[in-house]
């Protein structure tokens, strides 16, 4: 695993954004790890235009999103450690990729996440505590996807990319100008479903953005175990553009996703965005990364932390003062506290819920089994009374 392979190294190279033969930059970056704005080259200009007139207030908003999302994630991780959650899949390190791309969407767009898109959910206005039900084991989904156009988490790797494509095909049929964004990981790029979603979306010119967060690992397997070419380059073989963006640069993620969604709305079909980022924690709380990766790898990526980077920029530009950061700190604590309280108070489901919603129109066998189960449970209650 070569950590330094693709993210640019020296300040000069960074500003110049290396180019691939097609005139595309290898990596779209608008904010350096040191928190300096990159002067857009010709190759970057097309993307940079999408954040050209971003206001200090919007920048503070992105910062706030990332900080609160990280706080929420940290709270969920500790709740898992305390036995309140059965499992947690942390997004630590991927805040910029998620907030940047999520904030590029419109309310009428539709989002298809995996199981790690807590930051995207945040940008869609989903109450974060709703995300915890399935990790606590009280439900297998837990929210109405149509409320915020934020689909249920998908655990089977890659499946949702086809759902996203079909949804996008529907949008096109309706003549609407909404778009769809589908999230998946570098590991998922190996799945047949993902390849098929590329094919379908290209053939039907579906308004869908494939947003691959390449966090370098699929559990223990590095990206090299999934592909020999940079993932964004795959798009070309299907006939649509692929762009690699610095996934730890919230501005670049916002710009590139806006650009891709805009293309989709204009009827120009799918785009593959590869957000080059890093999973700073374990795959999930059940995972043990010490078995397959070195600490120095994480250290190298910590230097590219998306939150520190934006803070440096905000401070250097005097876009945010101490009061802002202090207020945000307090808001973070309040969020953590609320999440803790809500989770601890989450009741176990009624036993008979096993039989709820198995069918929309009902089913004789389910009714029969429900009645048997109820009678069986009642037999214990009777016994206790006597």
């Amino acid at each position, binding site marked *: 695993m070569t950590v330094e392979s693709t993210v640019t190294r020296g300040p000069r190279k960074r500003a110049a954004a290396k180019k691939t033969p097609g005139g595309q930059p290898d990596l779209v970056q608008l904010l350096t790890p040191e928190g300096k704005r990159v002067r857009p080259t010709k190759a970057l200009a097309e993307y940079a235009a999408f954040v050209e007139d971003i206001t200090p207030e919007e920048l503070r908003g992105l910062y706030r999103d990332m900080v609160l999302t990280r706080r929420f994630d940290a709270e969920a991780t500790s709740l898992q450690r305390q036995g309140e959650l059965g499992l947690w899949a942390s997004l630590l390190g991927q805040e910029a990729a998620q907030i940047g791309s999520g904030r590029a969407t419109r309310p009428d767009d539709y989002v298809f996440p995996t199981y790690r898109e807590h930051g995207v959910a945040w940008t869609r206005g989903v109450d974060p505590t709703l995300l915890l039900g399935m990790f606590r084991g009280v439900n297998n989904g837990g929210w109405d996807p149509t409320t915020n156009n934020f689909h249920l988490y998908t655990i089977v790797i890659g499946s949702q990319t086809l759902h996203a494509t079909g949804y996008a095909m529907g949008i096109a049929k309706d003549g609407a100008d909404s778009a769809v964004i589908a999230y998946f990981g570098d590991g998922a790029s190996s799945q047949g479903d993902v390849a098929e979603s590329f094919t379908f979306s290209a053939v039907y010119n579906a308004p869908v953005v494939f947003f691959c967060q390449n966090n370098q690992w699929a559990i223990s397997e590095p990206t090299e175990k999934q592909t020999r070419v940079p993932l964004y380059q795959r798009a070309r073989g299907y006939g649509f553009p692929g762009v690699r963006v610095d996934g730890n640069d919230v501005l670049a993620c916002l710009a590139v996703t806006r650009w891709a969604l805009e293309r989709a709305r204009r009827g120009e079909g799918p785009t593959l965005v590869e957000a080059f980022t890093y999973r700073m924690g374990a795959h999930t709380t059940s995972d043990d990364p010490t078995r397959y990766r070195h600490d120095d790898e994480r250290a190298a990526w910590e230097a590219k932390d998306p939150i520190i980077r934006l803070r440096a920029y905000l401070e250097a530009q005097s876009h945010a003062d101490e009061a802002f950061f202090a207020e945000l700190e307090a808001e973070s604590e309040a969020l953590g506290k609320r999440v803790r309280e809500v989770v601890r108070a989450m009741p176990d489901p009624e036993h008979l*819920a096993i039989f709820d919603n198995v069918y929309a129109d009902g089913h004789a066998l389910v009714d029969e089994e429900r009645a048997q189960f109820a009678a069986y449970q009642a037999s214990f209650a009777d016994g206790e009374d006597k």
Partner: protein
Amino acid sequence: MAVKKLPIAKAINESLRRALDTDPKVLVMGEDVGKLGGVFRVTDGLQKDFGEERVIDTPLAESGIVGTAIGLALRGYRPVVEIQFDGFVFPAYDQIVTQLAKMHARALGKIKLPVVIRIPYGGGIGAVEHHSESPEALFAHVAGLKVVSPSNSSDAYWMLQQAIQSDDPVIFFEPKRRYWDKSEVDPESIPGPLHKASVVRTGTDLTLVAYGPMVKVCLEAAAAAEEEGRSLEVVDLRSISPIDFDTVQTSVEKTRRLVVVHEAPVFLGSGAELAARITERSFYHLEAPVLRVGGYHAPYPPARLEEEYLPGLDRVLDAVDRSLAY
């Protein structure tokens, strides 16, 4: 290696090690089976000792894993593939059902498909969805596949040896919630045939039939019933395709009552097949209808409800009571 007490996961590990050691054509393939040693550590240390050419970390693509294993088998290898969890076998289901199961017959018996597909299955570990299912009936229903599930370390060790040596594709269901249960393994003992059921407790009043994770529950139920003066016989089926009906029949004709227990939904499950066959074979011996205890016709529930969904001691004993009441 002398007789050892090993957890099931470790017994499987030792069994894979032995197979890799004795036959250079044996390969282990799957997601995370290398450095990580699998998410349950069942393949721990194998890549270190046998190298990346024999213990292969595959791309995250189940159809690809099984499809390429078929090709490797056609080329003379004996791949043992790991599907990470029960619910993730379905991307590969097409390859398993439309290709792996039928190729031998289509080739007039001229080619062999010695592929073993290991699947940790079943619930009881508090996991999120797709990590607790029991899809064995979906595979047993397909001609051309053999389906087995050990319930203890010795069987895990030996049945895997036999599955790898088999020239037929074998779906090897591992009871994941029993991975850490220890029992004795004798690597020198000569085991019985792969598809033979075993009577793991003798009794006279009723026969409990189970396999995989439910064998332990049935043994506990039998022990509890004994305190109430009831003598239950427990048969560990071991193989779900084919099923050793003879052993079950012999037991039932002695006890005259049968309760089948599995985690999978009862409807159209392996218990239904047992009920039908035993009713056919032993109609005049039965004192009660064959009863089944298992999962419901509902998606596997979230973790906080799985204890209600899974057959436990009480539900098994309740069925025993009902059978004995006839």
